[in-house]
């Protein structure tokens, strides 16, 4: 049970005085006891380096790593009592599953006898349903089985922390979803503080208590999955989280009574000031629409902008479809229902509710207005009543 803190952690590879590469810069992260932290970002963003610094596999150049308030910078990996699941599982190929699971317990300075270790191994194997594989070598196991052994090797020692380095990246899509759920369940069950690295935003959203989004070694945002989706700290987070990608357009902003007026090339609309938390003092804004928030105007009316779009491609995904089109605003992607009568070249009218619109400062790229969930029903009904 550990409260993990990273305090102004910096990692420079190579010579810091000369041409060192800054992998992680001035990182502050606080993970309360029992929380599940996901480090999310594109490749090369420093997320794995961060994880390795927590585990003790890399030494921070500056800053402190603390477990329960104790600085552990000088504690070697083998003494930190931390367990890690690697992307390639890193099972010891010359040992049986039983030996793989027991290896850590045997290294530890505990008072366990050989039989006690064996019992513990069996117990963990039963929990992960791999007890019939105990005498196999890793080469004989399937990807999912290897993954379970790797998980078993981590939980058997009841460590202070779990570290996961893209543990699902080497599995096929279906297995990835099952294992994701299993890891989530397992972690809630044992309640051990965990840090999990991935570049897959969907994985991060489903599994995390808190997500830390990194880019170029800098922390972009630390927040719950809801926060990073609805209130992304900046344009990078908004574009990285959520799929398909957010639509972004240029817009001009002016104040009009208790509303802000947004003028775009082909559409303009008002956003009531009560929907905006920050004081906006720029004329130019970047306007963001999530494809999920766009509706066909014929199915649902809003008091937001409406714009004509010519359909280019329709990609059905079950009950909905992702539609790529061209509008006067520019290229648009929308995720819509009622798509069966849509063909390429067709015209459709898209609309979005003002509370769902994101606004960003075009120079600082920071968020001016996020997506409001609670307002949605209210805004929706009022729009309906007006238009109908």
């Amino acid at each position, binding site marked *: 049970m550990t409260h993990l803190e990273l305090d102004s952690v910096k990692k420079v590879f190579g010579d810091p005085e000369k041409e060192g590469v800054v992998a992680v810069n001035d990182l502050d992260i606080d993970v309360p006891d029992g929380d599940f932290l996901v480090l999310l970002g594109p490749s090369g963003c420093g997320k794995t380096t961060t994880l390795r610094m927590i585990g003790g596999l890399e030494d921070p150049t500056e800053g402190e790593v603390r477990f329960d308030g104790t600085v552990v910078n000088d504690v070697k990996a083998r003494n930190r009592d931390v367990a890690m699941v690697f992307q390639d599982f*890193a099972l010891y190929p010359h040992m049986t599953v039983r030996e793989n699971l027991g290896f850590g317990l045997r290294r530890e300075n505990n008072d366990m006898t050989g039989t006690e270790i064996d019992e513990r191994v069996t117990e963990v194997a039963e929990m992960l349903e791999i007890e019939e594989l105990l005498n196999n070598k890793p080469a004989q196991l399937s990807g999912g089985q290897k993954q379970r052994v790797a998980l078993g090797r981590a939980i058997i020692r009841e460590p202070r922390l779990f*570290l996961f380095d893209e543990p699902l990246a080497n599995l096929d899509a279906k297995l990835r979803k099952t294992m994701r759920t299993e890891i989530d369940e397992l972690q809630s069950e044992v309640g051990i503080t965990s840090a999990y690295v991935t570049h897959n935003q969907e994985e991060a959203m489903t599994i995390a208590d808190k997500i830390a989004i990194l880019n170029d070694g800098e922390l972009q945002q630390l927040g719950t999955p809801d926060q990073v989706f609805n209130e992304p700290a900046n344009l990078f987070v908004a574009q990285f989280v959520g799929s398909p990608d957010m639509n972004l357009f240029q817009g001009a902003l002016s104040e009009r009574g208790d509303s802000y007026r947004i003028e775009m090339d082909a559409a303009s609309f008002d956003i009531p000031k009560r929907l905006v938390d920050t004081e906006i003092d720029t004329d130019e804004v970047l306007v963001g629409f999530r494809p999920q928030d766009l509706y066909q105007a014929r199915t649902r009316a809003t008091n937001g902008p409406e714009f004509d779009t010519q359909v280019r491609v329709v990609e059905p995904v079950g009950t909905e479809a992702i539609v790529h089109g061209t509008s006067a605003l520019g290229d648009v992607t929308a995720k819509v229902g009622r798509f069966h009568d849509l063909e390429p070249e067709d015209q459709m009218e898209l609309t979005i509710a003002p509370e769902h619109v994101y606004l960003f400062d075009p120079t600082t790229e920071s968020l001016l207005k996020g997506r409001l969930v609670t307002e949605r029903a209210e805004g929706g009904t009022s729009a309906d009543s007006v238009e109908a």
Partner: protein
Amino acid sequence: MSYVDQAQSSYRSATRYIPESLRVYLPILPVMALVGLFILYPIAQAIYSSFFTKSLLAPSEAEFVGLANYVEIWADPDIHQVLWNTFVWVTVGSLAAIVLGFLMGWLLDEKLPYTSVASAIVLIPWVLPRVVGASIWQFMFGGSQGIVNELLVQMGVIDEYIVMLGANQYSLWPPIIGMVWRLAPLFALLTLTSLQGIDEHLYEAARMDGATPWEQFRYITIPMMKYNLAIGFLLMLIYNVRNFSMVWVMTKGGPGVSSSTLPVMIYRAAFIDFEVGFASALSVLLFVVLLVFSYYYIKFYDKVRGDM
């Protein structure tokens, strides 16, 4: 028609009468013919010749003598010294090369900078022409100008220069030292390659599991490379037991037979005493040893291929 098409069509017409199932052997045939004639056939020839007395000068006047050559080996006054010397070569020489080579490979792996340049330099003793390497050591150990003598005097091990290559009690060792110098780099490279082949993540997993560096070495490094080490060990045995140049250049096996090994004795028997039958019987002895080593070499080889 391009030359490839021509080659192909002439290959086709040449092989028209050969059943499809046998055509697969055709590309292997030249190699097997060459190896069969110049390596495998002589082995059989040696076994055959070992039952005859014949002179190198008049090989056609051979006389069948049964096992007489083997009896003669047993009765030979020099054979015990030679076999003992060969045994020392194979055991002491191989072990020294392995220990030294392993340490070299281990140092090259991560303890020293510029691994690839350093390992190329380390390899020089192995790739140098055998005669060149052996000559250097002969010069260093030999006669009145030998630097080794001067070194030992400086270190206070001896008071004045001693004769090493020409003295019965010392002559066995300088060629072994030279051979260790030649073979250790080879084992070092095998070690280095094996070490580099071990996935770094295994060490990281072991560190997370609480293993000390010694435990990582004991439980990860050694088990992961044990078959590679076995292969390297057998290579050392094979190279040592069949070595000729290092002894021949440095001491010619002398004085007397004090530094002779089996290959030197074979050479003397055949090309100085001209006794082909006797030399063949000695060669058969060497085959048996090499056969045992090769058997294990191939066995470990299959293990490595099978396991990975």
